[in-house]
């Protein structure tokens, strides 16, 4: 993260306008319930919004996953309640805490603030996708956290680890100051910031040695 993201990029990633545009494009309306979860498969009733699910294919953790998705459904909800990938946490429901951070084509984004329909054809990576599925080998960031004993309650950990992953992939020579900036979109209420930065620096060190 040697250079800052431009305001334009941030706007495109996170702004309410982009989010609403996505909703409009998919033909749904935004209501106060727009961050709310649909039920498990087979239990759906017609809702007041008369919205209908569409079967789509998502690319998640290297696998094609077929899933029924509502037009206004957020990626975090699809992951958690349709694909049972509960490692992605919901801490605030709206882009304040970063607990739901996932990678979209390698870029860290808030899963609560991106519509599932918007990630069709893109590579989604969640915390469950970092460990080598065959060998059980941890990613360099996960290994760094193990080495340094990172996190306390760890509810924020998956989000931080995804942001750290994007960070070391982009710049394994990151400095402590740059790492702080790169991770500033994630909140840790236990305020384990000092140790998280130490983990980040260890992760960068491991990434350089790979």
């Amino acid at each position, binding site marked *: 993260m040697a250079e800052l993201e431009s305001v334009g990029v941030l706007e495109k990633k996170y702004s309410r306008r982009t989010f609403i545009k996505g909703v409009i494009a998919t033909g749904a309306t935004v209501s*106060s*319930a727009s*961050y*709310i*979860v*649909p*039920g*498990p498969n087979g*239990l759906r*009733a*017609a*809702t*007041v*919004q008369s919205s209908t699910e569409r079967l789509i294919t998502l690319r998640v953790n290297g696998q094609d996953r077929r899933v029924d998705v509502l037009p206004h459904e957020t990626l975090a909800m699809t992951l958690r309640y349709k694909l049972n*990938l*509960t*490692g992605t*946490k*919901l*801490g*605030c*429901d*709206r882009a*304040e*805490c970063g607990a739901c951070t996932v990678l979209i084509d390698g870029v860290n984004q808030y899963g609560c603030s991106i519509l599932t329909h918007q990630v069709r054809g893109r590579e989604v990576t*969640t*915390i*469950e996708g*970092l460990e080598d599925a065959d060998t059980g080998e*941890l990613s360099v960031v*996960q290994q760094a*956290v*193990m080495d340094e*004993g*990172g*996190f*306390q*309650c*760890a*509810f*924020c*950990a*998956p989000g931080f*680890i995804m942001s750290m992953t994007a960070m070391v992939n982009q710049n394994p020579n990151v400095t*402590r*100051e740059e790492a*702080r*900036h790169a*991770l*500033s979109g994630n*909140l*840790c*209420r*236990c*305020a*384990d*910031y*000092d*140790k998280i*930065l130490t983990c980040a620096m260890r992760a960068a060190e491991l990434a350089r040695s790979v």
Partner: protein
Amino acid sequence: MAERLVGADISPPDLRAKITGRARYAEDFRAPGMVFMKLLLSPMPHCRVRNVDTSRAMALPGVIDIMRASEVGEPSDRPSEEMLTDEPKYEGEPILAVAAVDEETAAAAIELIDLDLEPLPFVLDPLDSLRPGGPNAYVGGNQFSGQDGWTEYKWSQAEFDAIERGEMPNPLDMPVQWEKGDVDAAFAEADYILTEPVVHQSLTHHPMEPRSTMAYWENGRPFVYVSTQSAQRTKMSMAGALDVDPEEMTFVAEYCGGGFGSKIPGHTHMALAPRMSQKIGRPVMHRVTRYEENYIGRARPGFQSWVKMGFRADGKVTAIDLIIVQESGAYGASDYNSAANIADLAFTPENMRFRGVSMYTNTPPKAAQRGPGGAQIISMLEPLHDKGMREVGVDRLQGRFLNAPVEGATFGPRNSELTSIHAREALMEGAEAFDWETKIAMSGQREGSKVYGVGFGLSPFTAGSRGYDGLMVIRPDGRLYVYQGVGNLGTHSIADTVRPGAELLGLNWDQVEVIWGDSSRGMPRTSIQAGSQTTHAHTRANYAAAEDALRKIRLVASRRLGGSPNAYNVDNGVVSGPGGRMSFAQVAEAAIQMGGELDGSTLPDTISERETVPAAQRLAGQGLMGVATDNYGGSGSIYSWQSGFALIQLDHETGVVDILEYVGWADCGVVIHPRSLNAQQLGGSIQGMGMAMTQRWVFDSRYGVPFANRLYTARPPGFHDVPLQMTAGAVGIPDPQTPIGAKGIGEPSVGAGAAALNMAVMDAMGGNCLCRTPLTPDIILAELEGRPGPWNRLEQLVG
């Protein structure tokens, strides 16, 4: 030789699950046929539900049922919180619950419910309720006792006139008051007297994980998945709320995404999902959103206070006169009592008077928040003490050293004693790590519009308790299985409290399995995970069980191999002595064959019959059992100490504070897990900085509704709010009254961090004490520019 476990950095056994997404918090559990519940929150700060029409909601396809207050509690005029209510006492209090096939439908149904509400008078600021003729939070009054029921407590106009004149009021009949020494005489002899009104804001806990619950019933037995700080204690309170035998319930609390006092024995609303599930016969997920967490998630009570401190010319504090009016929310709080005790303990005035009143208000419920009472009072008094040192011309650090307690100090109205005190060591070792001499030379120096400030705090809090049970089994695989009833709230105590006992048994850490978070596995009688007591309480309980296990291992060895039991020693999972050696695996098998007390077939009558016995009975016959109660005894309260030192820059043009450096130093006895200890110190200190600076409670005083109800409006500190690198360490002197020597540390750090920041800001303003929180830029700027802010100086919630 087996490895040393105490004092080593060992990553906790749950870490891999936490970082791979496998760790399951309450909202991560699923059950076939699971439906969703949502709460209808009161839109008014105080009202009575005249009528509810649910017909349109029930007609919505997908809506399953609605639960009302009358189904989960009895109407009462006592200030006791129920799960649902027809007389909400704060905006956001749950009125009813809706179950539907999905959360969206439940939310849509809530919108279709027609409510007929009768608005009632409300009050947000305690001082408003204290005024003659002022409003009360309850219809019956603003004070409640079991004996007298509801009464009104008001100050006379004379008190408010005194406040207007900038004086300390002198109410004579405060509900709580105590005095020790001769306060008036001490003030008469004092060389310098300081009197200040001080306001400490209320603020929400906001743990990262909202308090979601999932529950279902099978064959009349509840299965509940909860977010809670404690495990066994919460299991017992949940069983009470559901009116079931605790042993008939499967209670799962494997992970907790933070609580900070807001989820101690669970929480009031955790029983709603199981009650709804019982009603509708379906598994129920109650996902709590951040917005809802703001209302039902608890908050720290704020104080409006007056402090009078008397100083001798040599810097000794000789008297403190303290008045606290506590903003106690809808259902009360008791922080002000511990605040007064800690003021006495931390500054050793010898002459002290405390007068306090807890005022009900129509704001979200209050609860202990990390260092309850202590964090507020240390944050408030350290800057005043510092001001006193400046006035009498005593070195700031030396003056604090002088007024810190030493071994044998007593405090509070009952002259309580402590097991050990190394406050001065924590202060001076912290100062050295901070490089006090260099930093204090920077105090007041200007770089452009920015001015350096240096501050510190010395903060005590409770750190232990006694008398709980430990339970462990060495199985025929040769490994030690330790059954923990403590909650997994991020402090690593599920594992760290096992270490001294495992070390006694001569085990390496990879020979130890910790079992936690699921009551069906067996949980012994356990403390609540609050008051920083777990490290002290459960190193002792597990050590007692380990001593029991060691006695039994030696007994088995002597029976099988001959010789005296005491001639056998353990190391690396092997017991050896005059007759030869046995592996722990062989010992476990022999114990099962021998039966009796050795494998838990018979149990000691000292352990808790209601809690530990059922847990131990589940495990009987599985191996060699260690089970015992902590009978180590001890006298006096158990407290730990935290010093904190901050170097800041205050921008006099923008009012923005930049915290450049922070050092924390603890007196918490023997250090079990250095890395985790440092994380507790620094994390707690940063929470204190958030309490003092970034988290701001703002209410609309006209309608009684909070504006700061999300993370971005009541913002906990983020990466850019804290120094790039921080330092922590510990005194490390063992507490003599516990065989392990270790005490807890979670709580005192909040007061230390807040005090250090408050004092540093004061220092950067040339010693001008703002004497209120939060220290947001607009408040600081108004003070710097000498203009009135958009708030009344004593106002509680419009900070």
